[in-house]
């Protein structure tokens, strides 16, 4: 068995059945081995960035390892944005690239790049294989490492000659999974019981720790008012009476108010990202903080925790639930206050009674949320539409909301939707995108067509880079700079060129029929939604400002908003 065949054998052993890749010179031995392998489905995307982002979407939607493959040089460099995206959002991913033959490394050979060197900052770990016999142990270690602790991408760069070299059939040590166990929670419980206004603040770490169920049970049992980060959306569920929704720059007034007023913040699986906290000096000013996270480096990184807990998330949450089950927290006044804030300061999007009125982003997303099946996966891109989805789509599970949180990668949504559709071939998967983001990976329409994936594409087209335009309007004296996209192609014709049917809507009375048409269609379909160029995402916190300084539409002309923002 040569190195290439061993890689496929390792895929089988770890139940890796779907990989996303693009062939080329130095990875050809692996593609040659794939010819004889019927157990691994290789998805041929049309750009390596599409491969990496599809693997990312597959991992987010399924909770499994995403795998992407490319050749050396430009194949590897094209992967970089997708791998960085996975790194920033801690997505488990295995990246395999071919490298020029061992003897040619360092000679500026054709399609040689220093992949190991240029990717150090965007991987959890990486390897350059130096001899074929090390490959089996490294494959095992890489697959375990990508998924354990705080997950992330692990990159293996393999010289072409080693893919063709026989691998010694000797036993190799299998890495032991780390188990951190359940810490002592007495102090945390004492702090929870002493608090009058405790608030639950959760993020993407809940899903990364496969702790969605235990978190939901804890949220229900504790009855703590809860806010979520962008990546935490879907927790603790749309039916939870204590769910205040997303906090932060585009969070709800209710969520940010609750953070501002709370006296104890229970942070679980969140890293206090600047988009969520705003100016840290003004963040939760009256609160003590308990921080529960799998990554010790996140503790005290941005704000000192009064109590830090590192342990198995499921065990920790189950222990907390057990302790609170028989003696609930006495916080009824606080719960009532938060519900009032949610009623008056939650996300609102009025349906327009005028059937001929132009479509607004929030109203469209509200309709989509009402019509789409409960288990629909929404893969967003980045920009205004991403925030409208976060604000107005009611998710009931975090794996139904795929969004590029840390890196903010325009072009993420379409390949991520492809990955999600491979994770569940019969599920409903919708890519909600903007006209700017859509054009960044539009070549993957060919992948959708090739595999006849029933992905639904919704392009919210305002003929500009809306989020940039909005910030230029609000914070740069309305000096528009390089945001105009009014020469976009005809997206309906473009989809049809890929043999994907498409339709266009622009009026409020067309929303329902448009959504129902694409959902009912047996195959991929694109819905082009024309929206106003001038529409903004509200509320907004100026970058660098405190969350209590939220701006809404009525305050948009405030002189304070016109200050230059670095």
């Amino acid at each position, binding site marked *: 068995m040569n190195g290439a065949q061993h890689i496929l054998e390792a895929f089988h052993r770890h139940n890796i059945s779907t990989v996303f890749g693009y062939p080329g010179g130095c990875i050809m031995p692996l593609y040659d081995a794939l010819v004889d392998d019927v157990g691994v489905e290789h998805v041929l995307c049309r750009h390596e960035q599409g491969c990496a982002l599809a693997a990312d979407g597959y991992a987010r939607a399924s909770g499994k390892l995403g795998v992407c493959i490319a050749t050396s040089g430009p194949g590897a460099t094209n992967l970089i944005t997708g791998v960085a995206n996975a790194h920033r959002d801690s997505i488990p991913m295995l990246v395999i690239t071919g490298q020029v033959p061992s003897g040619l490394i360092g000679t500026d050979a054709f399609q040689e790049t220093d992949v*190991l*060197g240029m990717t*150090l*900052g965007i991987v*959890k*770990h*990486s*390897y*350059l294989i*130096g001899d074929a016999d090390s490959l089996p142990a490294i494959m095992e270690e890489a697959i375990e*490492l990508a998924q354990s602790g705080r997950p992330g991408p692990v990159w293996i760069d393999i010289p072409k000659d080693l893919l063709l070299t026989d691998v010694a059939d000797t036993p190799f040590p299998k890495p032991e999974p780390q188990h951190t166990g359940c810490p002592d929670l007495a102090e945390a419980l004492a702090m929870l019981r002493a608090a009058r206004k405790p608030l639950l603040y959760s993020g993407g770490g809940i899903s990364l720790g496969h702790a969605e169920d235990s978190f939901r049970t804890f949220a229900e049992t504790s009855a703590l008012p809860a806010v979520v980060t962008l990546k935490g959306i879907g927790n603790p569920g749309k039916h939870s009476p204590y769910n205040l929704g997303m906090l932060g720059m585009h969070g709800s007034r209710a969520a940010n108010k609750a953070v501002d007023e709370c006296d104890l913040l229970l942070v679980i699986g969140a890293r206090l990202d600047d988009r969520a906290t705003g100016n840290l000096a003004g963040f939760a000013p009256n609160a003590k903080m308990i921080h529960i996270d799998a*990554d*010790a*480096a996140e*503790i*005290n*990184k941005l704000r000192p925790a009064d109590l830090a807990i590192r342990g198995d998330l499921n065990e920790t949450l189950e222990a907390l639930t057990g302790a609170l089950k028989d003696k609930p927290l006495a916080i009824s006044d606080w719960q009532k206050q938060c519900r009032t804030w949610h009623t008056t300061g939650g996300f609102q999007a009025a349906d327009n009674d005028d059937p001929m009125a132009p479509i607004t982003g929030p109203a469209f997303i509200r309709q989509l949320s009402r019509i789409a099946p409960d288990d629909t996966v929404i893969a967003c891109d980045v920009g205004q539409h991403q925030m409208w989805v976060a604000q107005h789509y009611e998710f009931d599970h975090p794996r139904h909301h795929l969004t590029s949180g840390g890196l903010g990668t325009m072009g993420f949504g379409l390949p991520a939707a492809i990955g999600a559709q491979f994770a569940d071939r019969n599920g409903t998967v919708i890519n909600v995108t903007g006209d700017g983001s859509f054009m960044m990976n539009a070549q993957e329409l060919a992948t959708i067509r090739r595999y006849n994936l029933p992905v639904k594409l919704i392009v919210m087209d305002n003929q500009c880079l809306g989020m940039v335009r909005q910030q230029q309007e609000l914070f740069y004296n309305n000096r528009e700079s390089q945001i105009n996209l009014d020469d976009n192609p005809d997206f309906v014709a473009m989809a049809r060129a890929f043999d994907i049917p498409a339709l266009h809507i622009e009026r409020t009375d067309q929303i329902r029929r448009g959504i129902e048409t694409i959902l009912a269609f047996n195959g991929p379909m694109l819905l082009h939604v024309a929206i106003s160029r001038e529409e903004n995402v509200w509320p907004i916190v100026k970058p660098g400002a405190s969350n209590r300084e939220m701006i809404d539409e009525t305050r948009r002309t405030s002189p304070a908003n016109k200050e230059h923002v670095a």
Partner: protein
Amino acid sequence: MNPKADISTPSYTLNCRMSQEAAALERLCQVVRIRGFRIARMAVESAGEHLDIALTLEGTRPIAMLQSQLEKLHTVAEVALEGSAAIRSRIA
């Protein structure tokens, strides 16, 4: 943060042990740089399958933040701030 040091910039000495592997030192130095520290002195000794690295660092951010980021590196076995005990050991 600008890692450029001035006369008031705090200085620390960290002793690290990590596995010998391709790009080991680059990986370590990359984390030091991106987390806001400047390497004023660096001494490396090979010890079997390990490298022992003594780093004199300058930076205004909390050194504990850098320590915890270095400890996350898969092949780093130990990080000790001179004058304090090693905060963690791990079999690489």
